[in-house]
């Protein structure tokens, strides 16, 4: 600001000062979020990953409709398409006009139908677990930072314990007990619904620590910012302080953590499926499709690559999007 006007109060001169000093009087008002969106728009890689992510989300949303209207049927087997060893009779894993991605060895189920529904189930599981983890993490993080003292100390110890927990091991060891408990207390139907809820709850209960720590740290530093003091000075309530003044400043880490947690849970679901925990066939998830495909890696390589590639695409696109959002929200934080 050059500040070349030694002005006093009042309409006209004030106007003059504003005009010389504001970046531009023409542009419409831009919130920090809008500015971030503007930066995002210039970032090609992030835009591409955004498109890929949106395609996956679209696929997930349309899958139930496609099944409902009978366009795809992920459960229908077609044993006539496989030979006596269960291998697809046709070349390229049974790819044809009817089965663009081939068929599943052994059962002859349509790979595209299974993959499409699998994306939906996997993203649903990941999203549900992410929501649980985010809500838990944000609330506990704010409480921890806001309350301080022994509440903060207890939450801190719980986070340490959770992080020290051998999660996968416990999941395997406790799977049977866990499934029974889910069934008993949440009244889920036996079988796959219970398994899905078990995976969601466990991922959610163990996934909140990272965001809780981030939020707590942010709350502690934001609390010392003068705009929070100003709000106290105005006589604002504690609620207003934490939810109107501080929370809006947490959207950046929340959004970034969200986009990074989704792919982490998609691969977690796959890893658990490989270990035999979670939703089982015939209900398709990316995890159990991949698990199935591994035994055919040498005989039907197309079938092996398709689910693996899909999971990789989801993980990479979500991660790139998360990184891109982080950079757009915090342009000074990277080079």
């Amino acid at each position, binding site marked *: 600001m050059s500040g*070349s006007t030694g002005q006093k109060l009042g309409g006209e001169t004030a106007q003059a000062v504003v005009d010389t000093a504001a970046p531009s009087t023409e542009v419409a008002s831009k919130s920090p979020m809008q500015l971030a969106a503007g930066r995002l728009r210039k970032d090609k890689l992030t835009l591409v990953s955004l498109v890929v992510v949106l395609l996956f989300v679209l696929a997930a949303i349309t899958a139930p409709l496609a099944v409902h209207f009978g366009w795809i049927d992920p459960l229908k087997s077609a044993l006539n398409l496989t030979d006596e060893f269960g291998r697809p009779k046709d070349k390229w894993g049974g790819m044809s006009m009817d089965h663009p991605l081939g068929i599943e060895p052994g059962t002859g189920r349509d790979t595209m139908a299974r993959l499409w529904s699998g994306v939906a189930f996997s993203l649903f599981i990941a999203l549900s677990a992410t929501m649980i983890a985010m809500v838990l993490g944000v609330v506990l993080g704010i409480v921890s930072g806001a309350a301080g003292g022994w509440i903060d100390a207890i939450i801190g110890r719980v986070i340490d314990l959770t992080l020290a927990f051998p999660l996968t091991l416990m999941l395997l060891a406790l799977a049977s007990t866990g499934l029974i408990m889910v069934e008993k207390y949440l009244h889920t139907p036996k079988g796959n619904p219970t398994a899905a809820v078990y995976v969601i709850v466990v991922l959610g209960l163990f996934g909140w620590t990272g965001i809780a720590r981030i939020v707590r740290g942010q709350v502690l530093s934001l609390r010392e910012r003068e705009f929070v003091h*100003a709000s106290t000075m105005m006589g604002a309530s504690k609620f207003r302080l934490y939810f109107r003044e501080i929370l*809006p400043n947490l959207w950046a880490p929340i959004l970034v953590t969200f986009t990074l947690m989704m792919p982490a849970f998609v691969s977690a679901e796959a890893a658990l499926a490989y270990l035999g925990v979670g939703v089982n066939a015939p209900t398709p998830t990316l995890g159990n499709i991949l698990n199935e495909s591994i035994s055919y890696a040498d005989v039907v390589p197309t079938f092996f690559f398709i689910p693996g590639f899909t999971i990789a695409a989801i993980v990479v696109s979500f991660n790139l999007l998360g990184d891109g959002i982080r950079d757009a929200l915090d342009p000074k934080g990277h080079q």
Partner: protein
Amino acid sequence: MAEPHESQTEPAADNTVPAGDVAAGPSLEELLKQSNKPAKFDPDAPSILTVDNLEMYFPVRSTGVIRRKIGDVKAVDGISLSIPRGGSVGLVGESGCGKSTAGRAITRLYKPTGGSVKFGDRDLVQLSNRELKPLRRDVQMIFQDPYSSLNPRHSVGAIIGAPLRIHNMVPKNQTLKRVQELLEVVGLNPEHYNRYPNEFSGGQRQRIGIARSLALQPKLIVADEPVSALDVSIQAQVINLLQDLQKEFDIAFLFIAHDLAVVRHFCPQIAVMYLGKIVEIADRETLYSRPNHPYTQALLSAAPDVKQAAIGGRRERIRLTGEVPSPINPPSGCRFRTRCPLAREICAKVEPPLMQIGPHHKVACHFAGELGNQPHDPVTARMLGVDNSGNPDPGATPTQIEDSPEFSDVWFDLKERRTVKP
């Protein structure tokens, strides 16, 4: 202040700052001199806020699980002052001496650990947050950092409107109108209410913060270094704005600053703080022309313009060596002794009391005196009942020295070494 105020528009004085050459431009002193007629000190003005022996200690805790209290940061250690209705008092001191903490304790952002802050007939220190809420309208604060004092996620309208909504100052549908009035009062374009803080310069942001503090029509504003973060040319504009607002709305100010140049044009009465204590307090003319504390003298000699004005530009700058000691473990006796050019034995042993040495002048130093004219033996020894090197003197009878927020009409005359009553 229901109406947007009108003031005569002065022609933009473009010649005051050569464009693009801020560094070599005129100093704050010169800029202010042109536009500013500082108010006179009125010793009889009724007090609006009386701070008595205010203490703000922060506990220092050990690390680890138990976190025992192992000491105190004595950020503010017994300060007393009185702010007259519609007047202004300056509070000056180096970084880290506890100015912000004092301001925040007075406005009850912190709960003071001792002393009282009387506003009207109520002691703010004793009030709970709920009881404080209605009083928040009367006492407001302007913050030091224009970048962190505005929530980056809220529009200017939301920022200035928040106090209006919290206190139901105006009917809901009038909030926007009132926000625009306030923007106009502080010299911003009222149409910019829907912009976000990142679209404004530092000076403009500070104006937004000022508008927010005016929204509740306070009687007292604590301004915590409101211009320290700004360019010199902008500093003058903001100080002028504050001065106009003060006259217009009859607001009292506690104006915190880290150098004596800024408050010179704003405050008829100035207190100098060092490490949590007031070391000298006086009306402006006395403090700038006849400072009696070595610390004030050093501060004055460091402010080039003021030096010129106060002591004719003849004196060399007094360099303060060393750092401000930690308020966790302040030096014994006089807290300034580790950096004081005059320090002697007594200074380490006995703490100098803040004694009144003139009609509107108090100072806390054993060797209080004008620069180059300091006494050879401690002026305080007799009243403290010690000998000249600070050891207790069995023959002497110490006099009770009390530090009240107000000035008394008897004081200790340094030359005659006795209490005088004009």
